[in-house]
């Protein structure tokens, strides 16, 4: 629900940054269409508790992306074990609608076989490519001269990385001990005023007694 829109005469961003600029606009148009877009994505089972942000196709693309952004390494939990794609789906329930829309546009652009064919002569969707081709596409995005692709790479990579390394299951592999145990108090009092006495703590303060005769308090 949006209660207030920008007032007339204000200067909003005219269009989403992803749609700005000739090349960016043309690329995003490719994200949602073109003959080669009709090519299928890989099929991935959605999480048992359903999807909240992604379509099944978007979920499959994120899953494929996560395998390449976080290639499996001995000693690390797999992206499936950490449920990275599900984590991305859940994170996106909390973002501004415009950010969700842009993420979906980027995923479809990554997946679409037409730009992948135009830029790299690979006439397959991203999710159905070989791992080597997927790595090559991601490198092209990462180092592209087109800002949209570099921006898109940064956004999608960050989403997947955050979903993976936010899991304590990854901590042993990187030697991160986590926070010291026994510090956090899940039952700490929550004071909201309203006539209730404020508990004494590190935040409470009593002003020092005023000095008497310019010296002794």
């Amino acid at each position: 629900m949006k209660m207030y829109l920008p007032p007339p005469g204000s200067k909003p961003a005219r269009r989403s940054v992803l749609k700005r600029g000739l090349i960016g606009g043309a690329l995003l148009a490719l994200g949602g269409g073109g003959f080669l877009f009709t090519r299928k994505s890989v099929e991935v089972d959605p999480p048992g508790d359903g999807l909240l942000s992604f379509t099944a196709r978007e979920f499959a693309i994120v899953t494929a992306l996560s395998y390449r952004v976080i290639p499996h390494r001995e000693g690390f939990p797999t992206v499936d074990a950490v449920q990275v794609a599900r984590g991305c789906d859940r994170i996106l329930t909390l973002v501004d609608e415009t950010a969700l829309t842009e993420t979906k546009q980027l995923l479809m652009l990554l997946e679409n076989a037409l730009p992948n064919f135009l830029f790299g002569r690979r006439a397959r969707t991203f999710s159905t490519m070989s791992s080597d081709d997927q790595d090559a596409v991601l490198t092209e995005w990462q180092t592209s001269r087109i800002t949209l692709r570099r921006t898109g790479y940064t956004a999608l990579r960050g989403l997947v990385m955050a979903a993976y390394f936010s899991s304590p299951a990854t901590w042993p592999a990187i030697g991160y001990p986590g926070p010291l145990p026994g510090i956090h108090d899940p039952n700490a009092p929550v004071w909201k005023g309203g006539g209730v006495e404020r508990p004494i703590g590190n935040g409470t303060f009593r002003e020092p007694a005023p000095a008497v005769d310019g010296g002794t308090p």
Partner: protein
Amino acid sequence: MTGRIITGDELTKDVTVECDVCVIGSGSGGAWTAHELVKQGKSVVMLEEGGYHTRREFDMNEPRAFQNLYQELGNRAADDLSITILQGRSVGGGTTVNWCSSFRTPERILKIWKERHGIETLSTAALTPHWEVIEQRLHIAQWPQEMMNANNKVLWEGLGALGYERGLIRRNVNNCLNLGYCGLGCPVDAKQSMSVTVLPDAVEKGLTLYANTSARVLDWDGRKVTAVRAEVLDGTTRKPTGVKVVVKPKVTVVSGGAINSPGLLMRSQLLSEGRVGEKTWFHPVLMMMAEFEHEVNAFHGAPQSVYSHHFIERGPGKMGYFLEVPPVQPMLASTVLTGAGAETIELMTKLKHLNVMLAIHVDGLLPEEEGATVRLREGAHSRYSIKYAFTPAHWESFRASCKEMAKLQFAAGAKQVRSLHVSPVTLNSVADLGKLDDAKWEAMQLRVATAHQMGGCRMGKDPSTSVVDPHLKYHSLDNLFVVDGSVLPTSLGVNPQETIFGIARWAATHIGQAV
């Protein structure tokens, strides 16, 4: 008289309230302003779009903290993602998540404001009495050198080895356990954030604080703001619940910070001929990462306790910078590191041995700079269009600071140093510094971040070049003030919280007189 903190879940039907002053935003500016006004006996209502999160929730868990305590879950950024913007969003604002570094405003900056912007009201003499009270209340004191963590020690020892100026940072903490999780909300309330100090003090004196309540528009007529219209947000989804809060104050104080305050004014058609949202300064941060043989464990220990202002003034036409270090916890580190997938995973296995150094650039002092421009974003509720204009001076300074950071890291014993370029530059000794000259120094080719947002509603004497006057009153309205980092006409060259505390406490006197 006692006040209350009211959270969104308690607000099930529309509310209209009258008061002397409505303060919008509960961070470093809003909290001190409200505190002083209730002390004066004024009836004050505060609106805060973020939630009321306390140590009961502060379990040092990164995803939970970023979700609850940061703007856009920590994903706020320039439109092209060329700058990542870390900015607080909860009761207490940035003070709930900052790293406690406390500096008074440099004399040099106050002098520039006076000479270039006609600001004669703010001087060291005017602010010092306020800083003294604030420092006592917030236990601001130098962090003991013996408590310094290994990450800060890299900077300290590097500075010492190269003979550069160095200092120990003063922090606003009380009974600090040296845990290192200041950025995720202090689990023991040792950090003297606004949410555990000045705000509850103000509530005890009568402040009514509505959390999860987003001010959307100011109604104004002639030269007066007549009402603040807000909507209640769901504490979890951040979406509007449909419940509205309308405040009818005699005086309104906007303290939403350097991006949200301009946003509220723009939604309210208060544009100052386009100046609102312009000249926003970010203290752009460059980072260099070093690997050490020994464990650094940069995820633990007081995050910032060492600084250097050795390069704060680099001569005419050049941008200065200052040096500090950040905490390095896994989720944030993984998103900041650059390079291909396997490369990042390899780096993450070395997390315990990594030091990261920050060069924080002092923008807004060179005449050609425009900084960031903030505009409303069509269809968005909490996002803005943000564009930052990098200049050749930025790139010169970025390159120079990355070289100096690498020198410091090697001087402290680093095995290898790495830039945060899209295609990272790896250095094995100071002899490799020249490799940085071959890197791409342009937007989106390397990580740039900001944790200090300033400007956008800049103060000044001349109404044709500023948004608020030297007493922080909006030029063309009689009962609207802006009190937060957005009023700063330039960046500071130091971490900004104590400057904003001081200005807010100073401003409360004449705001009270306007009621």
